[in-house]
């Protein structure tokens, strides 16, 4: 089975899971008693956060392998993961803000969870800016790998921030008293399907972006060989 067929299959699986998640969010799951209909944002907000964390962890892993082995493939994987993670991290901040306005009465507060997530977003924004400025240089890839590894330290800080500091952010998945904060099993099922849908979406997007970056790397190598061949032909 070739790569194109795998990507197509993955795209179809993602589409099916996403449709199932949408059905569950808007039809199947009961409305939460306190927050009302706006609580349904949570079913896509949390998976976006999960995917962003997973992608930033992948950036760090790819960075370690790039520094260790020096293979371009790891740099391409790290870059693809950072870019995809940035998209999902942006969605976490935006959807969180939209949820906060009717619930807290403000688009933004300097709460520990929100602040550490914003720092995470800025760190990976910095990573992408560094990569954009450094171009295709090996030095840029090395610096990017180091920044990716250091920035990933913020991921566990974001996760435990609701336990470490006083916060108004709801601790839904693991509450301070232990257990989860979802009162109905249908809510748990909806969240799980949404998590699966976003995980599939992330893998699909990562594959697409990774393939694009591999093509760019191949193009760079071909351009160099072509320049050499043309110079030899002129001699």
């Amino acid at each position, binding site marked *: 089975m070739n790569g194109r067929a795998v990507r197509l299959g993955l795209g179809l699986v993602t589409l099916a899971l996403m449709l199932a998640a949408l059905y569950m969010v808007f039809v199947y799951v009961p409305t939460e008693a306190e927050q009302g*209909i706006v609580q*349904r*944002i949570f079913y896509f907000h949390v998976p*976006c956060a999960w995917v962003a964390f997973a992608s930033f962890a992948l950036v760090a892993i790819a960075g370690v392998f790039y520094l260790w082995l020096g293979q371009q493939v790891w740099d391409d994987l790290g870059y693809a993961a950072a870019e995809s993670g940035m*998209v999902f991290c942006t969605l976490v901040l935006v959807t969180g803000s*939209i949820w906060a*306005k009717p619930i807290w009465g403000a688009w933004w507060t300097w709460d520990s969870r929100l602040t550490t997530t914003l720092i995470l977003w800025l760190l990976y924004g910095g990573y992408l800016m560094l990569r954009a400025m450094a171009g295709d240089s090996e030095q840029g890839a090395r610096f990017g790998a180091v920044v990716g590894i250091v920035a990933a330290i913020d991921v566990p800080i974001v996760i435990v921030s609701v336990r470490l500091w006083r916060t108004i952010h709801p601790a839904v998945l693991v509450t301070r008293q232990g257990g989860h904060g979802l009162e109905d099993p249908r809510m748990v099922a909806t969240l799980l399907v949404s998590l699966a849908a976003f995980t599939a979406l992330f893998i699909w997007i990562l594959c*697409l972006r990774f393939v694009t970056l591999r093509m760019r790397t191949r*193009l760079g190598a*071909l351009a160099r060989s072509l320049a050499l061949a043309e110079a030899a032909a002129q001699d």
Partner: protein
Amino acid sequence: MDNLSYLFAAYAIIFAVIFGYVLFIWRRQVALEAELRAMEARMRALDDAAGAAKAAASRSSS
């Protein structure tokens, strides 16, 4: 804004951003594929020319 509008806005933004990003990747991929094909064709043409020159040189020497 009522709560339904917030819900709609959140989901609309999620799908707009994801769709936009996938479109960006897809367009980039199409452009790169075209560039790759053009470069491979130039490489083949150069190889053919080098092969022809070599054959001509061996003929003239014999």
